C-alpha cells in the first residue's frame, strides 16, 4: 500500500471516510444515525415507499431528492407486478451495500477497479409464507452473491476486497444477524 500520491480513482473519498472514523471515535453520539423510510399502500400488494430524510452527526438531513421505490409481487402470486418484490429489494440492498464497500476498500488499498458486477440469488421455499409447513422459514434459505470484478490486483487481493466488504457491510450484518424489530400501530 502506498501512502504517496495515488493515481487510483474509484470515485470514493477515502480521506473523508478515514477523517470521519477518527472524528467519530471519541464522539459516539455524533455517530448515532437513524435511517428512515415511509411506505404507503396503493392497491393489492402494490405499495410505494419514500425515502427523503435521515438523522446523523447530531442533526437532521435531507436527501438531495426524494427517492421512491415501488414494490409489488409478480403475477404468479396473482399480483399485478407493478414493482420488484420486497425480497428482491432486500437483495438489491445487499448487493449495493457490498459493492459500495468494495469500491471504498479498493480505494483505500490503492486498487483501481475497472468493472464490478454482482449477481444475486436468494433461495426460498414459499411453503413457509403460505403456512403449509411450519418447519420451513419464511425468509431466504440462503443467499448467493457472485462477483465478476476487473481490477488492477491479484485474484487473492480481489477476494480480500470482497471479504473485507462483507465484514464492514451494514446490510450483510442486517441479514446475517438477528435484529430486534418493534412494530407499533398508531
Amino acid at each position, binding site marked *: 500500500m502506498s501512502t504517496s500520491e495515488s493515481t487510483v480513482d474509484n470515485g470514493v473519498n477515502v480521506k473523508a471516510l478515514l477523517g470521519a472514523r477518527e472524528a467519530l471515535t471519541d464522539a*459516539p453520539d455524533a455517530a448515532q444515525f437513524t435511517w428512515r423510510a415511509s411506505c404507503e399502500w396503493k392497491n393489492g400488494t402494490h405499495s410505494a415507499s419514500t425515502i427523503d430524510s435521515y438523522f446523523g452527526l447530531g442533526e437532521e438531513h435531507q436527501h438531495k431528492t426524494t427517492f421512491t421505490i415501488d414494490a409489488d409481487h409478480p403475477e404468479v402470486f396473482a399480483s399485478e407486478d407493478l414493482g420488484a418484490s420486497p425480497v428482491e429489494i432486500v437483495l438489491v440492498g445487499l448487493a449495493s451495500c457490498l459493492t459500495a464497500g468494495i469500491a471504498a476498500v479498493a480505494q483505500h488499498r490503492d486498487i483501481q477497479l475497472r468493472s464490478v458486477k454482482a449477481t444475486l440469488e436468494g433461495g426460498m421455499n414459499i411453503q413457509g409464507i403460505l403456512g403449509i409447513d411450519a418447519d420451513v422459514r419464511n425468509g431466504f434459505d440462503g443467499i448467493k452473491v457472485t462477483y465478476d470484478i476487473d481490477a488492477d490486483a491479484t485474484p487473492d487481493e480481489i*477476494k480480500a476486497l470482497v*471479504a*473485507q466488504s462483507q465484514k464492514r457491510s451494514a446490510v450483510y450484518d442486517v441479514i*446475517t444477524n438477528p435484529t430486534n424489530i418493534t412494530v407499533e400501530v398508531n
Partner: protein
Amino acid sequence: MVFDRRVTTVVIGGGHAGLAMSHCLTGRSIDHVVLERGEVANTWKTERWDSLRLLTPNWQSRLPGFGYDGDDPDGFRKMPETIDFICRYAEAISAPVETHTTVTSVRRTDAGYQVVTDQGDWHCRTMVLASGASNIANVPALAAAVPAHIAQVTPTEYRNPDQFADGGVMVVGAAATGAQLAQEIHRSGRPVTVSVGEHVRVPRNYRGRDIQWWMDRAGLMDERYDEIDDINRARRLPSLQLTGSDDRNALDLNSLTGIGIKLIGRIAGMNDSKAQFSGSLRNMCALADLKMGRLLDTIDEWASANDVDGEVEPAERFAPTEIADDPPLGLDLAGGEIKTILWATGFRPDYSWLDVPVFDRKGRVRHDGGIVGSPGMYLMGMQFLRRRKSSLIDGAGDDARDLSTHLAAHLDG
C-alpha cells in the same frame, strides 16, 4: 499493622513483564519494588487450565539477562515448567518482589503516586502497570439469557474436561484458547460445537520451521506500533490459532472438523431458549484463509530475498477451511444437546484498583507505546504495546528497555 513506605518506582505485577522491567530498573540503579498479589507467576499458577502450554517454542523466551538453557529449544513449556522458568528468573535477577500484596488503589499525588495495598501504602514517583492483559474472561451480555440448566464456564475457571457434565459442549470463540479447549473437550468424549467469529489462522510449521521462527527471523515480531497501518485493529486482533504440543500439529478449523467437531457462526443472539448464530461463518473463514495466505507470501518473499530458500523446505499452501454446506443458524438450548457453554471470547485486564483518569471510553488505559497519559506511569505486557511481540515473554525485554529509558529520563527531568 500499617506500613507507609517510599520508593522511586512501584511495579505492579510479578510476572515476566514486571520482572523484565525490574531487571532494567536495577540496571539503572532505580530503587523499586515489585508488588505481587500472590506469588511470582501467579496467573500461571492459579488461573489457567491444566494442559496449557506456551504457544511459543522454548528458545523464544528470551528475557533480559535470562533465557532457555535446556536441551529442547524447539519444545513447548507446560505450566509447571513455565512457572519454574519465571520463578528462576525472579531469583536470577534478585527482583525485589513483595508477594501476597494486593493493590487496592492507586492515586495521583503531588509527587507521583500513592499505592494502597492490603500490606500498607507505598509512595512513589513513577509506576509500571504490569498486572497482565488477561485478568478477566470476557463474557458477552447475551450469556445472561442462556437457560439456567446450561452450565457456563470461562477459561479462567476451566481446568480440565472432567469438571463438565457428560454431553455436548458449545465452545464460543476460535482463537488459541477456544480452539485448544474445543480439541481437548471433544477428545474427552463430549461432542463439541465451536461458534466461530473472527480468527487468525496460521500453520504451526511452515517449510520445516516453526511459524514463530519465521515471524521472528523475518522481523515481523519486531514491527513497531508506530509503524503499522492500524494499531487499534492490531491491538484487538484475536490470538493466533496455535497450540504447543509434542506432535507440533496445526490447530486450524480443519483439524477440529477432522476429529468431528462442528462449526457454527458467531453467536449473535438468544431468543427464548434458542441461540442464534450469524450467517457470516463462510466469510470469517475466507478472511482468515486469505490473511494466512498473505502472511505466507510475506514469509516466502523474505526467504527468497534473504537466501534462506536453500535451508528450508519448499513453499507450500494449505487447503482452504472447509465449511458445511448449510451451517445451522439456530440451536435450541432446551433440546438437551448442549450441556455446557465455554466462553472463550477473550480476556481483558482488571484495573478496578486504578483511580487515575487514564481510561478511554471503553475502559482501556490510554497510552502511547506504553507511556501512559499520566506523568511517570507506564504500561507493560499488552497486545502490540510497542511491538508485535509485546504480549509475549519474548517481547518484554525490548519494551522494558525502551520504557525504563523513558522512565529514567522522566526522573531526571
